[in-house]
């Protein structure tokens, strides 16, 4: 559990750092080597602007109960929750495949290799319709309605 917590925290730290870095304009990064003072000033202004924007967004959210979104990019913050979950699930699948390669001892479930050539004959084949069931789902709005019809 402790290992899992450390891992999860590390994933979140990585994500927030990567996202924040993506907000820095490319021009600012380019001029860091040539004009460090101005670049630092610009960066501090950027941080200040970011903090003010965030504080303003928080005020709006608290007053209106609006969903928090990044207006500048249209990036939905719910991805910060979905991405780690998806990442962990995919990693688990990959690790399961790797772990499966370590186990090669398995009992045979069938005797397919021992079917006598030409011995398989189908002598009875019937398909009988029993009943039908129809479901109806509204596609016009979020208020879906379901109806079932049985014949």
């Amino acid at each position, binding site marked *: 559990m402790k*290992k899992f917590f450390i*891992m999860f925290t*590390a*994933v979140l730290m*990585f*994500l927030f750092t*990567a*996202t924040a870095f993506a907000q820095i304009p490319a021009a600012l990064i380019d001029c860091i080597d040539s004009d460090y003072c101005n670049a630092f000033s610009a960066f501090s202004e950027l941080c200040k602007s970011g903090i003010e924007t965030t504080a303003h967004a928080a005020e709006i959210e608290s007053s209106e109960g609006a969903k928090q979104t990044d207006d500048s*990019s*249209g*990036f*939905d913050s719910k*991805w910060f929750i*979905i*991405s*780690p979950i*998806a*990442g*962990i699930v*995919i*990693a*688990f699948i*990959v*690790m399961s495949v*790797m*772990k499966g*390669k*370590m*186990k*090669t*001892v*398995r*009992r*045979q479930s*069938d*005797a397919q290799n021992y*079917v*006598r050539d030409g*011995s*398989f*004959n*189908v*002598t*009875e*084949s*019937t*398909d*009988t*319709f*029993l*009943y*039908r*069931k*129809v*479901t*109806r*789902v*509204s*596609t*016009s709005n979020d208020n879906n309605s379901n109806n079932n019809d049985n014949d």
Partner: protein
Amino acid sequence: MNKEYKCPCCGGAINFDTDSQNLKCPFCDTEFDVQAFTDYENNSSDTEEISVGNINCTSEELSESESDGISEYVCESCGGNIVCETTTASAKCPYCGNPVVMTGNVTGMLKPNLIIPFKKSKEDAKAAYYEHLKGKPLLPDTFRDENHIDEIKGVYVPFWLFDADTKARIRFKTTRVKSWDSGDYRYTETRYYSVVRGGNVGFDRIPVDGSTKMPDDIMESIEPFDVSEAQAFNSAYFAGYMADKYDVDSDQCVERSNERIRQSTEDLFRGEVTDYDSVTTEHSQINITSGQVQYAMYPVWLLSTTWHDKNYIFAMNGQTGKLVGDLPVDKKKYWTRFLLFSVLFTAIVLGIAFLTSLA
């Protein structure tokens, strides 16, 4: 009483050679055809049919002259019965790794109908084992680096081979699903059917391991063996190898064979149910008529190694070279990779989501 197969040329003890499929003297390199050598030794006997339950077993008992060449050892640790040619220099039990003690001779042993001679050598088994360790990133480094094979033994494992004919009638519940849009609604129609398939199918020589000392899952994992290459039993094939004596009779093994037959029969008839979106078995009636049962010896290379005081057993099909054996997992490597992959895939998913939002 023990017997050595002696080279008629130099008098040395001879072994079965996997490359030439002949008996070969390691001292003077003279090769002998198995049948010709057996004729030379004058080992032949008549057969007698034995009835086992409702099935006919055509096995016969070894004559005294044939069992002369074979000795039985019983491991005092695990109780495994090991039957081997007297020239075999065996110091350890292939099942538990402990020294075996010779306690008696073969008496009244059921003579196998068939034997598949070894086609893969000890070197092939070693090579297959090291190949088995490759491409396993979760294998502990110490297992790979410090690994040494404690024991490699070529063992003839006793198998019962079952023939059977089945008559089946299986009822399935199936569905066909169709969807369409109309107005503000999406309609889904599911049509339910009752489908019956009946017929018959036959099976030949389904092998079931007849030794309790040999793990059944390992023996089934190294299948299939090609029975078309089997030879009539000749004790000369034991030369240089060990052989286990069956301690589970055919009546006890037949149920395992029937389990596999039932599954295969159902799969075959299910395969005949096509053009449906879902198929569920509702009722199956499978009548199995047992046929001939044969007693056979199949070639298996057993490799054992010890790591962290735990014994790991690997088995290789002595005919096809298929090797199996579970390997340990390094927990540290597992969790490190899990973390790295989690971060990597999280970043990828987030990156895709971010790029999609920009588009």
